[in-house]
């Protein structure tokens, strides 16, 4: 396959098709609508199911139904729409069926705006729907990476009978970049021993998230967490840049990580020993590599397009052994490499206090600039 110019959202849609997507259910919302539009053209031609649902509630429950049959199924949305899907995600998790959801994140809270943001990290990684459930969350930083992670999303969801979310900000969804598509995989539906596809020549099956007996529900939650242990052991993915001798370690995912890389390169030209860790799986989070880097780094700098959500996971990994600083732009503002370079230079010359609250220090600096 050759490299072609692909728009992020359309690339995701095509990559899903090539990964064997059998059914898509979605609802229009900017900045992800091109996924819906692309699949409305592509899926019917392949004899596969496409449906524009009446709402995100409808869409996620159609995904839930199709997932129960063992079909490869996905939906996509953007922040406010994903909030509406949280009910369905919890049920899908509780029923232990595989499904893929793409969130092309935008500025929030509330209606917010349609500019790129990473404010749904906590919703995706730590919460969202009700009850205890783990989920896999992948965070691509480029169109190519989004393509590559799409097939992986389905494979992981099916392997662990778990939701896989792909979170990217609006800029990755909207930008065009040269990228290479994988070959078309045949969409042969796997024969899962749990799928409710009609009890032909077998005993009937029931898929439900109900465990009326609290002890049975507790056992289910134990089972989900045991499975999560496997995910944590086997599926952590991250990218390392200039980390061999880095004294300052930047941690950023998605676009924040990508912009940080430009800043890291510029700082390296100025002789600053700085590197970047870019988590690709933000759930499972790469705690172990951060633990290792804690032995080498003088300071961590977390860069996000929110008010410091992944920051808490980095702090959990670092456990106060090394100071952690934070820099973020939020509400749909994308940081420039120069801003991050300024932060790197400041940290390089003024030691960061281990006692200071990194979020408050950042907020004080930001509001002082604005004033």
């Amino acid at each position: 396959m050759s490299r072609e110019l692909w728009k992020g959202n359309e690339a995701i849609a095509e990559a899903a098709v090539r990964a064997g997507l059998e059914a898509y259910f979605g609802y229009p919302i900017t900045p992800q609508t091109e996924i819906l539009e692309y699949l409305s053209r592509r899926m019917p031609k392949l004899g596969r199911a496409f449906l524009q649902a009446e709402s995100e509630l409808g869409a996620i429950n159609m995904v839930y139904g199709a997932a129960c049959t063992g079909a490869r199924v996905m939906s996509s949305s953007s922040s406010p729409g994903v909030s509406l899907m949280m009910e369905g995600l919890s049920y899908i998790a509780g029923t232990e069926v595989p499904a893929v959801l793409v969130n092309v994140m935008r500025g929030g809270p509330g209606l917010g705006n349609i500019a790129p943001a990473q404010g749904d990290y906590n919703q995706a990684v730590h919460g969202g729907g009700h009850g205890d459930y783990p989920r896999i969350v992948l965070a691509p930083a480029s169109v190519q990476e989004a393509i590559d992670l799409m097939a992986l999303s389905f494979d992981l969801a099916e392997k662990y009978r778990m939701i896989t979310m792909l979170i990217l900000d609006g800029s990755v969804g909207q930008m065009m970049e040269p990228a290479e598509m994988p070959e078309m995989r045949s969409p042969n539906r796997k024969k899962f021993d749990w799928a409710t596809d009609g009890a032909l020549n077998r005993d009937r099956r029931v898929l439900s998230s109900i465990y009326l007996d609290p002890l049975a529900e507790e056992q289910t939650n134990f089972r989900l967490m045991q499975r999560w242990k496997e995910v944590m052991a086997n599926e952590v993915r991250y990218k390392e840049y200039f980390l061999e001798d880095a004294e300052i370690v930047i941690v950023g995912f998605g676009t924040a990580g990508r912009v940080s890389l430009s800043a890291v390169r510029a700082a390296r030209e100025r002789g600053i020993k700085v590197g970047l860790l870019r988590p690709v799986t933000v759930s499972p989070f790469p705690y172990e590599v951060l633990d290792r880097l804690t032995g080498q780094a003088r300071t961590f700098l977390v860069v996000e397009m929110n008010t410091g959500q992944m920051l808490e996971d980095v702090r959990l990994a670092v456990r106060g052994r090394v100071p952690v600083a934070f820099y973020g732009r939020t509400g749909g503002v994308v940081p420039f490499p120069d801003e991050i370079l300024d932060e790197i230079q400041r940290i390089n010359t003024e030691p960061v206090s281990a006692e200071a609250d990194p979020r408050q220090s950042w907020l004080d600096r930001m509001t002082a600039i604005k004033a």
Partner: protein
Amino acid sequence: MTIAPNNLVYDRPEAFTDMPTHYCPGCTHGVAHRLIAEVLDEMKVIDRTIGVAPVGCSVFAYNYFDTDFVEAPHGRAPAMATGIKRVLPDRIVFTYQGDGDLASIGMGEIVHAAARGENLTVIFINNANYGMTGGQMAPTTLPGMKTTSSPDGRDVETQGYPIRMAEMLSTLEGVGYCVRRSLHDPKNIRLAKKAIRTAFETQWRGLGFSMVELLSTCPTNWGMTPVNSLKFVEEHMVPAYPLGDYKITDPIKQIKV
């Protein structure tokens, strides 16, 4: 006690499991379940049917039917059923929903499934209250009817008017078959069964969305004996929710059951 086959006049349908139901004495859920099971038996589609259970008293419907079953979030059964049917168009997919589930929280899902003409069958149990949570007011609660959340009787000025689902959905182009029946006496139960069979036949032949609304009893939450509950359906529910065929398209009229 074993009954000789030639003396057996009444048995469990094959589409039923052996599990006794959890429904209250006198509740017509059991009757509705049995009618569906008999239809699945007659059509010989047990091994190609996927049921979608709702949230409400019939949340455990999946325990009683010997078919594949999934359990939907409250009100979302038509969306889940849509997802199943779109990837398995040659299977029979049906939802079984109460009035809180279908006419309140799930109003969006049912209207759009009907509007799209999804080849699904919906069995809609209207007993004018939320049974499982203890008898609260539903969209179908009659004016003046006392419930635990309309203790002085439903006041239409502040709590609105009942919703007539069969009439409402019958206005939609995608609907093939939409009728209302009642379960309050043997004659009406026979008519209900015929309607359920026609609804499933509608789906089997790909003739569009089908729904049978069934007026049902809730002796426990109505605070009535089972017999008085049946009288209440006849005297109060039927006048408010007239029985009848609200939409039967021409190809469906040709179906003989």
